[in-house]
């Protein structure tokens, strides 16, 4: 009796595993398929692409790369440089100042401490699009179109990153350490820069990646503020590709443009996926 039940249970478990792995593999293929097609198609010439579909790479990769890289209307190397510059500056500012703000609220006691904290939490989820009208007018007023200042400086105030840093500080920073630094005569800024920042390194690294990626991918606001060709960022160029007369395009080149647009993030992700995935959960609600 007991044995029969055990066997039945084992068989059920095997069936369950088969079903679960099938679902997982199906979803993994679904996620990877479009990117696989992208990479394959980026290795094929326009004529090969017109000829039909194949799962095998061809040998036109470097020709496509050269064509895309030197294209006259879409200056992708310049766009990548612009995007990189903006994303890097934003990532540094956003992590440093979020850590600073989190430290300020975590360590010090002051009258408006609770109010400041609750305010940041309250505005955390308000989408940036809803203040876009005023933001654009502000940029016009100060003649800052085709300038990266309005795309970089606002990242100093990033409520979500602040919240992540605050939670991190709560779990890692012993107050005794701050007190000890004070006894040793360290100034408050020095304590933050030389003692607290190194402790926060893992949190800073993860948030730098996330803010770099979101800035690199950002399309809505930059598209409204940058119209000079040499100032454009990668997402604007991709959208430009979409609005161009499609039929005249060398498709191998189009796939290469798309590949170049996602490649930096893809490479970083492949190298650091473990810590990135760990970073997804921290900083959200704990139930």
């Amino acid at each position, binding site marked *: 009796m007991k044995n029969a039940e055990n066997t039945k249970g084992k068989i059920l478990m095997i069936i369950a595993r088969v079903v679960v*792995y099938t*679902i997982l593999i199906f*979803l*993994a293929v679904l*996620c*990877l398929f479009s*990117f696989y097609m992208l990479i394959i*198609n980026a290795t094929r010439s326009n004529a090969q692409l017109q000829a039909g*579909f194949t799962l095998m790479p061809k040998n036109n990769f470097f020709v496509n790369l050269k064509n895309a890289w030197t294209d006259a209307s879409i200056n992708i190397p310049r766009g990548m440089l612009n995007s990189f510059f903006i994303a890097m500056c934003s990532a540094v500012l956003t992590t440093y100042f979020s850590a600073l703000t989190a430290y*300020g*609220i975590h*360590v*010090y*006691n*002051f009258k*408006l401490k*609770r109010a*400041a*904290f609750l305010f940041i*939490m*309250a*505005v*955390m*989820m*308000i*989408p940036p*699009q*809803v*203040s*876009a009208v*005023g*933001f*654009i*007018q*502000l940029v016009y007023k100060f003649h800052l179109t085709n300038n990266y200042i309005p795309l970089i400086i606002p990242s*100093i*105030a990033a409520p979500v990153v602040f*919240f992540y840093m605050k939670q991190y500080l*709560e779990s890692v920073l012993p*107050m005794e350490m701050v007190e000890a630094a004070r006894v040793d005569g360290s100034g*408050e800024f020095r304590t933050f820069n030389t003692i607290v920042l190194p402790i926060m390194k893992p949190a800073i690294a993860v948030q730098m990646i996330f803010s770099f990626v979101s800035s*690199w*991918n950002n*399309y*809505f606001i930059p598209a409204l503020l940058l119209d000079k060709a040499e100032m454009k960022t*990668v*997402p604007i160029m*991709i959208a430009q590709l*979409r609005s161009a007369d499609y039929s005249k395009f060398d498709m191998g080149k189009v*796939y290469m443009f*798309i590949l170049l*647009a*996602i490649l930096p993030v*893809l490479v970083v*992700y492949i190298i650091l*996926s473990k810590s990135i995935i760990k970073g*997804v*959960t921290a900083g*959200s*609600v704990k139930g």
Partner: protein
Amino acid sequence: MGRKLKPRKTGVSYAKWGYIFILPFFITYFIFTLTPQIMTVYNSFFENYRNGLKQVGPNFVGLKNYVALFTPDKNGTVGMLKYFGNTLVLWVMGAVPQIVVALLLAVFFTSYRLNIKGQQFFKTVIYMPNLIMAAAFSMLFFTLFSTVGPVNQILLAHGIVEKSVNFLGLKISVRILISLMNFLMWFGNTTILLMAGIQGIDQNMFEAAEIDGANSLQVFFRVTLPLLMPILVYTVITAMIGGLQMFDVPQVLTNGKGVPDRASMTMVMYLNNYLGTSKNFGMAGAISVVLFIISAGLSMFVYNSLSRQYRK
């Protein structure tokens, strides 16, 4: 909130440093978000746009922009309501499978009985689309599903269709493509969040249920789901706020047109149209205020669940 600080022996007050450290954040927020937010609301009461080379306004018009927003056009459709409906439909089509699949995967991954191998690999793969540039992802789908693209080539080669399908010409296929992309971009993220939620549940609960002879389904519906509810609600609400902002994917896929017949035009695309060449800040302001009210309402839920953690 957090840990209580010990009373200081020295009697030196460090309070001013608190203000100094949080000052950059608040100055920046004030200049680049709060002021623009107020200017946006202010603008919604003005007539202010460009007509060719001619600038009209700004003239105070009261609630005229809001009235215009909800007045039916000559075909009898109210733009704002239509685009709100589109956004909602597109969101539901993507978010329902996203949450169901994520819940399923989170249960699979955390089940010690199933003991799934290669978890890191699967997690890496399903989370990846979340980091990919939405504009590029959408452009990729556009090329793959274009009338001369590989998907049509496959369909034609296997005789599934006789002539190539214009995926961008049909309301249903455009909507499926957009929600498929949104699904792919977000289900991995949701899976990881829900996994953390399940791992946060007291393991004794599961063991007790098992000793009582509950099967997997009973454990899921009687233990996991009720205890996961706060996180699930949080996930759904944040997904809604994200859905409200839907822009990059449909904008690039349909070249900003919301084809066919504006059936895939979202609210932010509508807003973006007014911010483009016409620079109609009045109408754009009114749309923004509507968006703000909806997102502020949804934010209240998030705020409540977050501040519960800090209520002492």
